[in-house]
């Protein structure tokens, strides 16, 4: 009986481990016709080379992509060369590396595929002939793909040429990725610089009105203003903690209250458990600014703003609510889809984009609103996400 249980338990544990491992690395092996098999293998190798190529011509990634590209071409040696050096050499005959850079110079100059005969003193060196094809991004040669073999052949030249064109496509995609990232970063920088002139003017005049009547309050407000601008103009780091972000929101609200007085009512409900959560820099403050603007605009009576941050297992749920004029859902949808400019909200689209980039498409902004019925914006942030740390 005991033994039976032991075996059963061991099997159960084993099965669970296998099941999880299987889920993480699933492979398929079905029966294929010859043509399907060749297509499958070629495309599979090609796509294995794609992710490292997307990282660009940097040594570590290039080494990986060179391995797959060599499989694709079936040559004894293959090299990826940039303007100054051999970034990756796959296969034998590595002593030809210096020579390869020299040969590549010609390809860089002409932008055409060239074949070279190479004489080698070493008897078992597999490198006798080389085909160098340019890797181009937007019409500019950024690197050279060098395929080596024992015998010269027209087939090798054509195949190398095609592989180089395919690899160029991947490098162009990499460039596209980079420019998209640069765009988002530029938007964040713009967001930082985007403390509205109205806000500065209003804050300063509100502070000025206190200077004589309540110098202590004026001093506090000035310090708030200084801290708030320092945080917003901060240069380093894309991430911060929720507690830092809330602190900045507090300073912002203190300044707005100096202006609106009792009309601006704020309710906060913050679960202390989520304060250490890492969030993208300036992902909440613009939402609060939005809420103040929408909550107070065109209103005589008081406007009410509620900020909630709740603990939800491995996520933090944050909502920002106002009872103001609301937004037009259709216009908002266009803004979030990136179709219109900054009309519907300060950087809503940018925040949505950054959240999706950091945490995946499940974590975009959720906005509940209608004309005249207020706005509620919900943000979900996972407590842990690989590669994301507050700085």
């Amino acid at each position: 009986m005991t033994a039976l249980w032991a075996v059963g338990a061991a099997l159960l544990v084993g099965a669970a481990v296998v099941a999880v491992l299987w889920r993480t690395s699933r492979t398929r092996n079905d029966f294929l016709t010859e043509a399907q098999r060749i297509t499958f293998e070629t495309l599979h190798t090609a796509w294995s080379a794609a992710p490292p190529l997307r990282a660009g011509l940097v040594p570590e990634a290039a080494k990986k992509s060179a391995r797959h590209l060599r499989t694709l071409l079936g040559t004894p040696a293959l090299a990826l060369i940039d303007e100054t050096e051999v970034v990756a050499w796959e296969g034998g005959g590595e002593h030809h590396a210096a020579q390869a850079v020299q040969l590549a110079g010609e390809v860089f100059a002409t932008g055409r595929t060239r074949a070279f005969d190479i004489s080698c003193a070493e008897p078992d060196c597999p490198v006798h002939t080389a085909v160098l094809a340019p890797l181009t991004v937007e019409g500019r040669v950024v690197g050279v793909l060098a395929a080596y073999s024992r015998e010269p052949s027209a087939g090798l030249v054509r195949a190398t040429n095609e592989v180089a064109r395919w690899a160029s496509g991947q490098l162009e995609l990499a460039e596209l990725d980079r420019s998209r990232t640069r765009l988002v970063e530029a938007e964040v920088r713009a967001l930082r610089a985007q403390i509205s002139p109205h806000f500065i003017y209003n804050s300063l005049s509100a502070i000025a009105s206190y200077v004589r009547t309540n110098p202590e309050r004026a001093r506090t407000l000035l310090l708030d203003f200084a801290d708030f601008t320092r945080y917003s103009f901060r240069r380093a780091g894309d991430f911060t903690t929720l507690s830092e972000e809330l602190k900045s929101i507090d300073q912002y609200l203190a300044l707005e209250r100096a202006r609106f007085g009792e009309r601006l009512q704020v309710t906060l409900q913050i679960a202390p458990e989520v304060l250490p959560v890492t969030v993208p820099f300036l992902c909440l403050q613009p939402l609060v600014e939005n809420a103040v603007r929408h909550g107070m605009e065109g209103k005589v009576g008081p406007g009410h703003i509620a900020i909630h941050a709740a603990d939800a297992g491995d996520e933090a749920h944050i909502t920002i609510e106002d009872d103001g004029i609301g937004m037009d859902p259709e216009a908002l949808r266009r803004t979030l889809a990136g179709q219109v400019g900054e009309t519907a909200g300060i950087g809503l689209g940018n925040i949505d984009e950054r959240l999706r980039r950091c945490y995946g498409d499940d974590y975009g902004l959720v906005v509940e609103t209608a004309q005249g019925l207020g706005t509620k914006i919900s943000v979900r942030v996972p407590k842990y996400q690989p590669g994301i740390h507050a700085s």
Partner: protein
Amino acid sequence: MNSTYGIVAVLVVALGTALIGAYGLRVSRTTSDFFVASRTVSPWWNASAIGGEYLSAASFVGVAGLIFAYGPDMLWFPVGYTAGYLVLLALVAAPLRRSGAYTLPDFAEARFGSPVVRAVASVLALGIGWLYLLPQLQGAGLTLHTVTGAPDWVGALVVAVVVTGNVISGGMRSVTFVQAFQYWLKLTAITVPLVFVVLAWHAQGARDLAAPSSPQFSRETSVSFDTSTTVHAEQPVAFTGTGVVDGARVDGPASMAVGEHTVAAGSRLTFPAGAPVPHVSTIERTTNEQWALPMRSGEQFPLYGVYSLIIATFLGTMGLPHVIVRFYTNPNGRAARRTTLIVLGLLGFFYLMPPLYGALGRLYAPELLMTGDTDAVVLVLPSRVVGGVGGQLLGALVAGGAFAAFLSTSSGLMVSLAGVLSRDVLRLRGVRGFRVSTVIAVLVPLAMSSLVGRVPVADMVGLAFAVAASSLCPLLVLGIWSTRITTIGAVAGMLAGGVPALAAGMVTISSGSGDAWYHAFLARPAAWTAPLGFVVMYAVSLLTPRRVPPGVNHVMVRLHAPENLGLRSQDRL
């Protein structure tokens, strides 16, 4: 024992928990309180919350039961439960917090950047969590049985339902203040009755706890047997009662000769005051003097058992899934260390109490040695010693505290287990995924509890610790302190330590205690599985140097450099 007060106490605790879950802590604050609202959880609150979540059935009823039955060797349980935090403090607390990980699988991913290491760590965290949840349910069954006489499965079901409902409705999701309150509730529930018990013991003449005589019934006592039990009488005992003893019908006065006797289920025997207590056959028969000496617990290889227990508890604490998630609430590594230090103090104080229950139990509740329900000693003692309505109220307080212990530990465990299940196994994110996972997380131990033999609660918790010490502890300690650990080494080490420990645990749980020589090695596996896990992880890592995860130095700087030095790497999107 009059059960009314006890039932009321248990109901109050269960209802209170459910209400807090349903309504949450709806405390709204206005901006003037922003400073309060934005203040992070202080180490004191956090430490109390860890204590509240950590002090489980094993601590509340199990430790006293084991000491009651087996003597001071078992003091290593409370010592180990506490000292585990010392190891956590010295080796793990601050780097773990700085890693930014919320759960153990998160840490595995942050340190090794490998989905496979993460997957293995998740499976092990699940196994440990279930192994830990099981005794909580059992303990609840025992408490409800002792208080009301309900069958064992009722208590388990009550705890399972209350906790599941609570977790699903979104309440008690590790709300720090609720859990912190739980610690102080448990401390009160175990301390206040003990003060009265000790005073009463003193007033009744302070009988010697370590007299050179066997435990005796201190007054006329009737003992009910729910299961067929083999007892051993050292001296002839006379008794009256109804039931079946050694296959013969007993109705009225009878006696037991020296030797083994089998008492059938449903028997109710009444022993006169001063009669020596026949012991259930699995508990060593000792005089109170022998009981008070170490190495007399009657286990095989007692020294091995003690060392194994020390290794399991000292190293296992850091691998408990519900303890680790609490560290995330600390704002930085320094606060994590301070919290751990305070936890050490809080736990140390709490664990002063259970040994006293165990010792006094031998004077006042020796019939538990006969039925084998030794875990009930904490619950029975107050009403037995103090007597009257006061005694029953104190008994109710203990029962309520015990129930609070099951509820808080179970809910903490369930939240972390459901998190692991939904994220790593079922891959269902969002609220629905979490709910489905919660139900699965509770069904497994509930099903297991029906298969389980009679293993003392603290022993079973010890097994969870052993698995943690053999698998996740090497991952944490070597992962934090060595740059050489490779992904393959990490997986190999976790499996080499964890799988044997888990298998040994399953065998012990399903078959109960046995007599074979190897039983000690199965019931207390940590002394061989934990070194195995460490050695395999390090050796395999040395053999596969090419699989050191890239960027390991980057990760190490982040784990070890204090936050305010500005050394932390600036990871870009």
